[in-house]
């Protein structure tokens, strides 16, 4: 069988890739998608732990993380829409009032 640390390393790598996206991308939607990717990496960690600890808790937690991710996506995209109405751009660099 595959040892637990394989799963954990994988999710750490995915998490870091998500962080890359947040740091380098200038398109707000992609930044948001990268954050979703990070949350998913965490989900993978939870599920892997739950399997190897034999406790269902991890799976239930992922339930809640999905709810949180959904709420964040809803609000994040709503904010993006309202920003876009003012700026007509998705590039944080082009926001004049607030320096990034």
């Amino acid at each position: 069988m595959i040892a637990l640390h394989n799963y954990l390393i994988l999710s750490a790598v995915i998490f870091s890739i998500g962080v890359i996206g947040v740091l380098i991308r200038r398109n707000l939607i992609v930044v948001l998608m990268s954050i979703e990717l990070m949350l998913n990496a965490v989900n993978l960690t939870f599920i892997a732990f739950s399997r190897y600890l034999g406790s269902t808790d991890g799976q239930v937690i992922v339930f809640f993380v999905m709810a949180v991710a959904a709420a964040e996506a809803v609000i994040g995209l709503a904010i993006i829409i309202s920003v876009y109405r003012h700026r007509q751009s998705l590039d944080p660099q082009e926001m004049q009032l607030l320096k990034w």
Partner: protein
Amino acid sequence: MDVNLVPLLPAVQVLVTALVVTLRDLFIKDGESRGVLAFYSLVGLGLAAAEVFFLLGGRQEGAFNDSYMLDRFALFFALIFILAAALTILSAIDYVRQTGMREGEFYALILFATVGMIVMAAANDLMVFFLGLETMSIAVYVLTGMWRSNGRSSEAAMKYFLMGAFATGFLLYGIALIYGATGSTNLAQISAYLLDQPSEWPVYLIGGGFLLLIGFAFKVGAVPFHFWVPDVYEGAPTPVTGFMSVAVKAAAFAAWARILLYKLSPLDNDWVFPLWIIAIATMTLGNLLAITQHSIKRMLAYSSIAHAGYLLIPIVVGVEWGGLPLLFYLLAYSFMTLGAFAVLTSMTEGDESKDGYSDFAGLGFKRPFLALAMALFMLSLAGFPPLAGFTGKFYVFRSAVLSGHLNLAIIGVLNSLLSVIFYLRVIVAMYMEEGGAAGKSFRQAPFVYIAVAIALLGTIYLGILPADALDWSRRAFGSLE
């Protein structure tokens, strides 16, 4: 399954109020007065406060397998949140109308955020804490961006949201690692695990603790993660800024105190040094940058970073000495900051927030009460006796000295001296310069005056007669045992 619902009372009270406000708002026609909504909110908050006092007298219990502990600690913080919410709503009544924001949603979201905060402070389970945090954060993101005709507001919301969601990722990863190491998210079980097997913890448990730390540092705006604070505070509608800088910060510190400082205290050794650096960097940078600001709102944002730095001192100091000053300082900080932001709110004219130093020029002659209050808040923030800020700082630095962190105390005092420069500048502007904005009279905005008066009373009371509050803080922190 134990179903003890009594401890949920304050949170449920606020939640029900929020639901009522949301629904009532839907059945008021456009153009009609929505004042009743603010009234409902305040009554609901008052009832919640009464329930908190009622519960303070009784036996403090946990609910839902002790995943929710409404002990004195949680009750203390619940009071701070309710106070902050009430003062915010009071000072926002006129502001919201003036800026054309949606009233019903504004009050409801403040109340929803308060529910999240109460849950956060009482959470004895990482998942309960996490969901409370998210409820609060999402409500506050929306509040930040609610002033839709103002481009800054939505951009501030964007920035706040991105930073917050990013921090959430780290926080959640930390929770995952802690869950993996201990097999549970319940803090009681986690701390039992930590005490059970001293020092044989897997590396990723300590790593998980650090990730939690990063998440918290983001939320309170401590230094390497502070860069969102000034812009967000500046862009957000002024009452919301006050709410953020007091309630959100207090909630984050409450969870920090319970989770990291108390329940995970066996892991302390690993993060005392990094925290020490963070604390010093936060207060110094906050104060230095505050000097260079031209807008009072932005200055207050940096000052709030600096205060996060002071608040980190008790956390570095640890459980033994840190509890009392942390709680007391948060209470004192709430009053003076909320007061300052209430005054700032009253300066708004139409769609413009008049928050530059020049706008405050001559306020001492135009609106003597507001100016006097503002002066006292500034003095208190700077730490002049006999005001709340002084007492708070005194106990914070005292705890640092007593626990042997003399260097922290010295740097803290030096920082306080530094901060006098920009706080006094406000007073100078108000009393020694002329021109500037008019501010509102009592007739134009009576509720702001009430809010300012309450905050002023609190500031003075905590400065002159701190004994009761100190006793409360001590017992509140003691209830974590």
